[in-house]
């Protein structure tokens, strides 16, 4: 698969002096769903704004479909649909006209049949003649999506699309994204919700403090970092990990009442059998054993925390 968006050494320092992106490089593959995961202020919106032409990069280059986003902005932007994080809509206009406007703005001739399909898919058709200001927050977000889809983009950016929306809309959103992927649209979404990235993405990028920490296939990421922990509750307390068990990745739990063993679920051997027999050999009596899967959420939190000063 070829790369439809290529970001090279992108830096962005805002006028006030805040550096939001530090030499970011990112390749987005044609047809994939890429989730950008990062805490507030990580630079997700800034990255999208630079690609879409809303912010001016301080340095670096971006191409979309092979077109430079500055030198060849028309060709680049014609491929892009953007659903912004904030609900920015003209309040006094009807849904239909607002969506028609977007199509025209992106250089496409009017096609009410297509707009009808988009509105129907987003459960907005009944509201087509309603003024935007009369809609609920969730409906307004659907209008934003309809606007972005009205000009048939090849690359769709969804900036925190499910932040603060109801369950139904979130499910609709996931369906829409799956359908668009089926049509070959490349989708980049930013999110706080780990489940969202886990459920939808092909690849996951983690961004923190203006830096892309890693971009991995979701499966690889889960495997690479998907550790399990086994908590071994002890009959007697220990003051330290016994010397004979030092070769294991063991930590002493709170009050010395437990030992915590971390191991790789994907490894050839987990080492559990050997550990248990070595524990017995050390004369340690066990009371109970629990294991816990490290979820993507833990991975994410772990990654972001590692980066903290």
């Amino acid at each position, binding site marked *: 698969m070829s790369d439809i968006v290529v970001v090279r050494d992108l830096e962005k320092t805002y006028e006030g002096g805040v550096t939001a992106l530090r030499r970011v490089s990112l390749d987005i593959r044609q047809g994939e769903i890429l989730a950008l995961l990062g805490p507030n202020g990580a630079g997700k919106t800034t990255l999208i704004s630079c690609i879409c032409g809303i912010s001016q990069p301080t340095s670096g280059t971006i191409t979309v479909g092979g077109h430079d986003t500055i030198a060849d902005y028309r060709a680049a932007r014609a491929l892009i649909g953007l659903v912004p994080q904030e609900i920015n809509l003209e309040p006094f206009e009807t849904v239909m006209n607002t969506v028609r406007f977007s199509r025209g703005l992106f*250089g496409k001739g009017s096609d009410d049949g297509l707009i009808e399909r988009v509105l129907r898919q987003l459960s907005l058709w009944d509201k087509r003649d309603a003024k935007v200001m009369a809609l609920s927050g969730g409906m307004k977000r659907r209008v934003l999506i309809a606007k972005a889809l009205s000009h048939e983009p090849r690359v769709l950016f969804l900036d925190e699309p499910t932040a603060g929306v109801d369950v139904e809309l979130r499910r609709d959103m996931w369906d829409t994204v799956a359908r668009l992927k089926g049509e070959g649209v490349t989708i980049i979404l930013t999110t706080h919700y780990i489940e969202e990235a886990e459920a939808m993405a092909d690849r996951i990028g983690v961004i923190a403090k203006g830096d892309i920490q890693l971009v991995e296939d979701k499966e690889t990421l889960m495997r690479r970092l998907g550790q399990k922990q086994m908590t071994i509750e002890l009959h007697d307390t220990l003051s330290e990990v016994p010397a004979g068990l030092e070769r294991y990745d063991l930590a002493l739990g709170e009050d010395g009442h437990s030992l915590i063993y971390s191991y790789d679920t994907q490894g050839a051997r987990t080492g559990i059998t050997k550990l248990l027999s070595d524990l017995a050999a050390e004369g340690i009596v066990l009371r109970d054993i629990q294991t816990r899967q490290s979820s993507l959420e833990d991975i994410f939190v772990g990654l972001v925390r590692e980066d903290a000063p």
Partner: protein
Amino acid sequence: MNLHAVAAIYRFEMARTFRTIWQSIVSPVISTALYFVVFGAAIGSRIDQVEGVSYGAFIVPGLIMLSVLVQSVNNAAFGIYFPKFIGTIYELLSAPASFLEITAGYVLAAATKSLAIGLIILATAFLFVDLTILHPVWMLGFLVLTCLSFSLFGFIIGIWAQNFEQLQLVPLLVVTPLVFLGGAFYSISMLPPVWQTITLFNPVVYLVSGFRWSFFGMADVALGWSLAAILGFTLACVALIGWIFRSGWRIRT
């Protein structure tokens, strides 16, 4: 050329105009009628004629200019300020449209509205005074050019403004005084010589003079100067807007 974008913006803005059609038309018509009563009837009874034209008729071009200038600046300024204010500007900035196309959409819509208002005021004037227009094509040409150039100017004001106060400031503190001091209600020749010279630095003088010439065939300054002034002003505005979009000043973060 992304003509679809120009058309989309134009239609969207005209729809806004039609949503508020009555406010758009009624207030300028009423204020013009008031000017006729105050200037035409009250002052006109003392100033009988200006260079052979009845005072009531003499002020018509100036009155139209006053409305058209203020309307053009206000309409265009609001047209681009509003997307900034409500955040929909993101879409304009991310669209495959050049600054000329975006500007054209907003400016043509603003100019259309102020042109319509100018013509309505002209029609209203016929109710109050006897009026003949010597050069109707020139008259329309001047009117259209004025609507366009001051809509361009308003567009710049709308980008510059960071709040509603600033948005009101320029029309109120700059445009209206320039029109009042620009010979809308008097002939420059009626001023003391020093003021005649000072007045020549007021660009509106050239507009009003040219516009009045198209009605009555008399002018304060040569017609060529009027045309040069308005074309120069238009080009300066386009150049400034081009720079604004290239630099992203006040619109791109």
